[in-house]
């Protein structure tokens, strides 16, 4: 249970970072932290005490493996995270070019 609560704490740190920080690079880092907290939680869900990595070896028995599905899913979600991060970083660089600042409170031409 402790590790799940730690995951939740990590998630909350990421959320705090997204909501509270002004620098857009820090917001992107916050998004990364949130995503990794979820990924970590997902991997932990598939763990069982004393389980081995789900790789077929000569002395491996299936009943002794951890659940491989969350690992495959987390790999997918990491790839998605990579794409999102790359896109947001590209947008952030462009934003810096247009506004000359990374401060989110000064980037506000849209209102209404």
């Amino acid at each position, binding site marked *: 249970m402790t590790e799940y609560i730690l995951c939740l704490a990590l998630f909350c740190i990421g959320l705090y970072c997204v909501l509270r920080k002004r620098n857009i690079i820090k917001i992107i880092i916050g998004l990364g932290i949130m995503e990794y907290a979820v990924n970590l939680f997902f991997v932990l869900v598939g763990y069982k005490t004393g389980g081995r*990595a789900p*790789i*077929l070896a000569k002395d491996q028995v299936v009943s002794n493996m951890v659940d491989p599905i969350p690992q495959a899913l987390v*790999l997918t979600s990491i*790839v998605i995270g*990579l794409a999102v991060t*790359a896109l947001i*970083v*590209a947008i952030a*660089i462009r934003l810096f070019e247009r506004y000359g600042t990374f401060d989110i409170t000064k980037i506000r031409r849209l209102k209404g």
Partner: protein
Amino acid sequence: MKKSDKGMTLIVKTITRLTVGLILLYGIYIVLHGHISPGGGFAGGVIIALSFIHLMLAFGKEFALKKLSQAAASLLENLGALMFLGIALAGLTGGYFFLNFFINKGKPFTLFSAGIIPLCNIAICLKVGAGLFAIFAALILFDSSQENK
């Protein structure tokens, strides 16, 4: 030593020259063994892309882009994606989309097994490696155009 003006110091360049080929080979190894051991198209593709990024960091962007230009990277990326889709569509010959249609369905601990999975790994590796390199190159090029202003 006009050429060494770009990029990092001599030490870094020498080490890079020695290691970059090994990194590339290791990436290819990870891709080709992906179906029987940990690894696969994504991990291997990332390692291959990292070898090019390594070159770019050590020798400057011109050197790396001469090896693999952005247009070539985007071409490879598209070819990888289309190859993956093509393999998936080839499964329709057996009646199902994405069917593992090769006869050899995979024996544990054998390199040439697992039907279409090694082919899929190669396609993913092309897509991921070229894509990651293109992303990095795009960010680098954009940044330097900023400095020139």
